């Protein structure tokens, strides 16, 4: 019997804390983040991508679930749109980045670039299915590229912060 394995109450509490944290990140993204060129930084996406790189697909999926639901409740897009895009980003990033070293800071940067493009494309497709007109060239220049650039700017500071959090958890033995 492994005594270090947390009890189910502790695990449940940990998940509630994660969900609350992601709701707060979503609130910061939708209400507080200033927009540049009419585009906002997708903080939830960056956080989820970084966490997937640090903790793997399973942990990334849980954060995608909480972040996706929080954004779904806060934004006008249909509930499930952000969840779908974030979950697919976690799957792709988790699978592709498996072979690359996490200490190389180019990896999170490139993953945020790929994740941003994939997420924007999925959200545009969802809008298209929902009946909204999407001009693809305009969308590429006015939304996808500026958003990717903004996300890259915050990728490394957020990655370093989360890596510090991850290392602390590992030192305390909270993570296997």
């Amino acid at each position, binding site marked *: 019997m492994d005594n270090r394995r947390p009890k189910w109450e502790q695990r449940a509490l940990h998940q509630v804390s994660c969900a609350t944290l992601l709701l707060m990140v979503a609130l910061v993204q*939708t209400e507080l983040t200033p927009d540049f060129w009419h585009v906002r930084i997708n903080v939830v996406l960056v956080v989820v991508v970084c966490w997937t790189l640090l903790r793997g697909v399973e942990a990334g999926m849980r954060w995608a679930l909480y972040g996706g639901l929080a954004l779904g409740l806060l934004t006008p897009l*249909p509930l499930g749109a952000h969840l779908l895009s974030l979950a697919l980003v976690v799957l792709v990033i988790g699978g592709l980045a498996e072979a690359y070293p996490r200490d190389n800071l180019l990896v999170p940067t490139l993953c945020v670039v790929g994740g941003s493009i994939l997420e924007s494309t999925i959200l545009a497709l969802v809008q298209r299915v929902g009946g909204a007109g999407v001009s693809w060239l305009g969308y590429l220049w006015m939304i996808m590229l500026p958003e990717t650039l903004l996300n890259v700017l915050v990728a490394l500071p957020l990655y370093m912060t989360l890596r510090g959090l991850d290392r602390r958890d590992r030192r305390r033995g909270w993570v296997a």
Partner: protein
Amino acid sequence: MRSSIASSKQSRALNRRSLALAAGILILAMLLLLLDMRGLLMPVKGTAQAVLQPTEQHLTQSRVGLGQFFHDLLHIGSLRQQNADLQAQLAVAQAKLIQLETNQARTDALERELGIRQAYGWVTVPAHVVQGTADNGRRMIRIGKGRVDGVTIGMAVIGKEGGSPPALVGTVDRVYAQTADVLLITDGAFSIGARTTAVTPAMGLIVGQWQAGSRTRLDDVDRDAVLVPEDVVISAGLSKPIASDTPLAQVPAGVPIGTVTKLLKADNQGKSAEVQPFVDPDRVRDVWVITGEQTK
């Protein structure tokens, strides 16, 4: 050897677990998407928004206020110039007002005589902006008034910015119990009948053009119509007499939209022009929903 096999099995088990979780979440996402597109999750979203509304409103108003402060600080030179221009315009306007008051009695008599007097006011519901544009792909805002306040889909939402006239900001797109989502005039999906205020008005469609670079565009204007820069564009209220049951039929005629800045196209197919809205929908903090019209 044994531990290596065990570790490998555990790793595979973890992979299987991750994939099972991923599959579950993807199925959940698709299900939620489907249900919300059919409008079945409106009560859930409405309840969540009612709970989060005070926090959202507080944060949004703080951000917009702070943004406005820095904007003013950066543009203090142009503000001084704007102030001087406005004072000059005020002097001209006062002179015109005196002239208009003199002509008012004569105009009233003529209007009565022709039977075309349509003096009306808008019945409005004031609302705070609870949330600015939150999704990068859509230009939408959320306001703090909803179904319980008489707001319905398609109603016009107007705003005011600085010295601008009260002008169209967008139309109500989704309504929850205590909040509503407003599709801004700059969104690519926005489209409404409009006309210029010239003696022979140019009729057309105002479409949102933010995604394509400019803000709004007046499209489908007849090739023979006169359309020049500085023309004022207002809502045409075309849907009302044609199809009163469509949501956009609730937008009354005569709601100011913006001014023509440049002609984009003029050929055998017709004309189109870029229109600069009177109000920047992304900067408004307070809006009014036009819930009806009252006859004086």
